[in-house]
């Protein structure tokens, strides 16, 4: 259909860009960030190009390229996308330039250089594209592990006070999951060797295998653990609040917006089609985890006093919904899950960005220190509200479409789980509205610290201090504007997205049913 190797370019361009940025002389900091932005915008263009030339009704995998890589293992460097992968690529392509804009004026901690930051960011983008575009399980695994390294350094070198701890925790959790998945990947290869006579990692060949149910369960468990840690599902979630809180804002946005989607994407792309019997048998257990996560993480979020940890917790709750949609095994629910994945990336990404802007103004991550923001920074407060409402899936925002599809799709199959999950919506309203109330409204924090309200003096000083809190700069407006617009557009007119992903979702569910 097209000769442009879109996917390969989307990996090579940021990877080369990262190398160039890292090799720039230290004096060229400004050039480094301009180059980074240019590269990321080029990737976004490529993603759009790949989408435009993609035919939703055509072949399942398009823009396919495949080169033998390690023939001895039967590994190919095989790329290709279906609608789901393409949606994820668009999300990645969109969020990276946005976070570059959000970090535009950041300064590196002592003795570190922002060039390195930009380089790691671009390298992260390259590996993320690789994860979504790989159609060879081995290649997928390679990118899955490789993306830990840039994220590790982003958190560890440029993060908050407890960054070392958070970085190591993030890395070890993910690595442990990844290694268990490696065992399953090799196991899958061995099964393919005995069934096909020749070992392969090609996704299309593997999903046609007829694997013994007992073996399926073991292999499923290997993949599932890796993805459940990555998503994260309760009880594998404890790394996320730390990593999300300590990462620099750009890292947090990509971590929750895109990196975690790799987990749910993995459920859809690998767990369901490759291990249909195991998926069916074990689905109730997964749903227990999903629904428990919705409730538990929402309760955690209500109790958080740290802004970034709070947003991370809300994200865990949302992933419960996505997992519910995936493991309900209906087209509506799974489509809803994918739509939710995209919108969650946008909404939570936006929320993290806004929270980052609040933190950069107040100098504190504590919720209590951000009180009364609406009075002095109305536009910021407004965007905060939009992000919060999108996060609680208010009708009219994109998240609502996803959540609603998940719930109506799941109800016929799994009424009990769905009903319990619905409680999560109420809790979501609770934590978002509490957050909005505690941060945007009320008197500025200095009031309480003032000795006595007798004279107007103390309050005047506080107001004066607060009036220095500036509203959104033009750059910040430009950074949040596309996301705010998308929240609304995808909320009002989600059809193109739904059309894009539905055929891929149906193909996935056919694998699930057809292999019985």
């Amino acid at each position, binding site marked *: 259909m097209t000769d442009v190797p879109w996917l390969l370019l989307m990996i090579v361009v940021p990877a080369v860009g990262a190398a160039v940025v890292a090799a720039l002389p230290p004096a060229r900091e400004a050039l480094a960030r301009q180059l980074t932005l240019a590269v990321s915008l080029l990737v976004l263009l490529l993603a759009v190009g790949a989408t435009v030339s993609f035919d939703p009704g055509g072949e399942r995998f398009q823009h396919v390229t495949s080169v033998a890589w390690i023939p001895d293992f039967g590994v190919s460097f095989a790329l290709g996308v279906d609608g789901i992968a393409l949606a994820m690529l668009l999300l990645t392509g969109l969020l990276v330039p946005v976070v570059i804009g959000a970090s535009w004026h950041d300064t590196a901690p002592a003795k570190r250089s922002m060039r390195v930051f930009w380089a790691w960011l671009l390298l992260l983008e390259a590996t993320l594209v690789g994860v979504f575009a790989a159609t060879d399980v081995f290649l997928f695994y390679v*990118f899955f*592990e490789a993306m*830990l390294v840039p994220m590790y350094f982003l958190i560890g070198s440029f993060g908050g006070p407890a960054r070392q701890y958070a970085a190591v925790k993030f890395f070890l959790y993910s690595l442990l999951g990844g290694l268990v998945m490696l065992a399953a990947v090799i196991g899958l290869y061995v099964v393919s*060797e005995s069934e096909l006579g020749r070992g392969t990692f090609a996704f299309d060949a593997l999903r046609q295998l007829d694997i013994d149910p007992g073996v399926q369960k073991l292999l499923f468990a290997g993949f599932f653990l890796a993805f459940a840690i990555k998503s994260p599902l309760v009880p594998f979630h404890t790394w996320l609040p730390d990593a999300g809180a300590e990462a620099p804002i750009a890292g947090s946005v990509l971590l929750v917006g895109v990196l975690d989607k790799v987990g749910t994407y993995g459920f859809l792309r690998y767990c369901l089609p490759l291990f249909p019997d195991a998926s069916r048998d074990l689905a109730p257990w997964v749903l227990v985890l999903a629904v428990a996560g919705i409730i538990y993480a929402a309760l955690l979020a209500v109790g958080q006093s740290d802004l970034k940890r709070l947003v991370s917790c809300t994200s865990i709750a949302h992933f419960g919904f996505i997992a519910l949609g995936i493991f309900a095994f209906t087209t509506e629910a799974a489509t809803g899950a994918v739509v939710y994945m995209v919108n969650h990336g946008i909404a939570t990404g936006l929320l993290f960005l806004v929270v980052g802007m609040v933190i950069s103004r107040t100098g504190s991550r504590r919720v209590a220190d951000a009180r009364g923001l609406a009075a002095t920074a109305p536009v910021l407060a407004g965007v905060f509200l939009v992000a919060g409402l999108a996060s609680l899936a208010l009708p009219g925002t994109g998240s609502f479409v996803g959540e609603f599809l998940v719930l109506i799709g799941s109800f016929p199959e799994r009424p009990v789980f769905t009903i319990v999950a619905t409680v999560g919506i109420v809790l979501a309203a609770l934590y978002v509205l509490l957050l909005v109330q505690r941060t945007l409204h009320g008197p500025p924090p200095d009031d309480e610290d003032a000795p006595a309200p007798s004279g107007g003096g103390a309050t005047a000083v506080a107001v004066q201090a607060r009036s220095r809190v500036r509203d959104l700069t033009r750059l910040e407006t430009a950074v949040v504007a596309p996301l705010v617009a998308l929240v609304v557009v995808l909320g009002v007119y989600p059809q193109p997205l739904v059309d894009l992903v539905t055929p891929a979702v149906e193909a996935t569910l056919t694998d699930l049913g057809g292999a019985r």
Partner: protein
Amino acid sequence: MPDIQAPDLSFAALAPLLFVLGAAAAGVLVEAFVPRAARHRTQVALALVGMLGALVGTVLLAGTQEVTAAGALAVDGPALFLQGTIAALGALSVLLFSERALDPARSAFVAAAAVPAGTVRDRELATSTRVQTEVYPLASFAVGGMMLFTAANDLLVMFVALEVLSLPLYLMAGLARRRRLLSQEAAVKYFLLGAFASAFFLYGLALVYGATGSIRLSDIGAASGRTGSEPLLLLGLGLLVVGLMFKAGVAPFHSWTPDVYQGAPTAVTAFMASATKVAAFGAVLRLLYVGFGDAADTWRPLVYTLAIVSMVVGAVLGLTQTDLKRMLAYSSIAHAGFLLTGVLGVDGSGLAATMFYLLAYGLTTLGAFGLLTLVRDGDGEASALSGWAGLAQRSPVVAALMTFFLLALAGLPLTSGFTGKFAVFRATIEAGAWPLAVVALVASAVAAFFYLRVVVLMYFAEPAADGPTVGVPGLPTTVVLAVTAAATLLLGLLPGTVLDLARSAAVLVG
């Protein structure tokens, strides 16, 4: 009295061995007759010629499959592959030995090893720039012994090779110029425990001979296939395995490893950690596959257990180390366990995977230890973990390289460590031992923690005010680091050629 029949010797097939042992013998003469001023240069050149010549020899011999020297030596694919690996690692180690830019006294080796540590004479010598060169012929002899070890097709030759490779190593471990007492303690410990292990091996040899009436591996193979689990044979096998596992640094026969790795001069540690491991596993593979190939049920449970113990001990004890050399020692114990999982593979895939892993691991470890020689304080190398804090700010290149080597040891994709792990675990799972693979992967995750700790220290911690300095390496060390880093990357990115080579070489003759 009948004429003594000379055994048939295929000199061509033994050329690599003869080359390196010849260079070693010539080195002894050089030590005696060449004037001091020219001695260091001559010795380095001679050792390099011997080892690189041996490497070229193994390449030229590729494809040879023959048993020679009256059945005592087997020159086949695995022998040549591993001999080539050992020769290459040996040549790189010699380059590390010859580094003269780092130590203010121009050499990492003691000027007069026989002078007692701490005496007046010793203090005089400590600052002299006299360079002693006996380490080069010693290294050549050790390499010769290792190469013989991998080709030994008969238990007596295997024992002789074991001694030829061990004795120089005992000496080399005691040659450190700085922290001499630690170094000498390491040498004595290594010698005593090594002698003990040799005795085990000999005892095992005797029992196996008693059970089968032969010391040739092929005859033992035939007999073990016939008699199965005869107690005498089993006992002999067990003792032989103990002797070999000691050399390979497999837990629970590992207790010498941390002390010796820490005490020996770092360049020697690099040599021991890489080349000795290759040689020891070469012998393990040959003994188990040729000698007991048809009685695999007798040793599989043993190797299975040893692999688990070694992985767990290496990974868990590595967590508590505060010295980089000791940490890498425990890492080598864990890796020995990973290698053993490959030994359990069947149908040649295990053999090929283990050989590839040995090559990849040897090069990466050599590079990591090579980097350790660069970071120094007033008392030689600063291998204490705390000294490495904030190294990335002082020397980004050294920190980046170390990170790369550590990630390779941790087995992250796009490094040779990952390809190697993948190959051995695949062999393990194919052989149906998937629980072992899962244990191995969990152990990898635990081990990753201590590798990561170094990365964290280097990048995310503030440097100590009186921390060590990073020396500027001379040409030899630079070459070693460049070669090992490039190999670690290439074997991760495009391992196809080498994997093919290992697979096609994985045919043993008996």
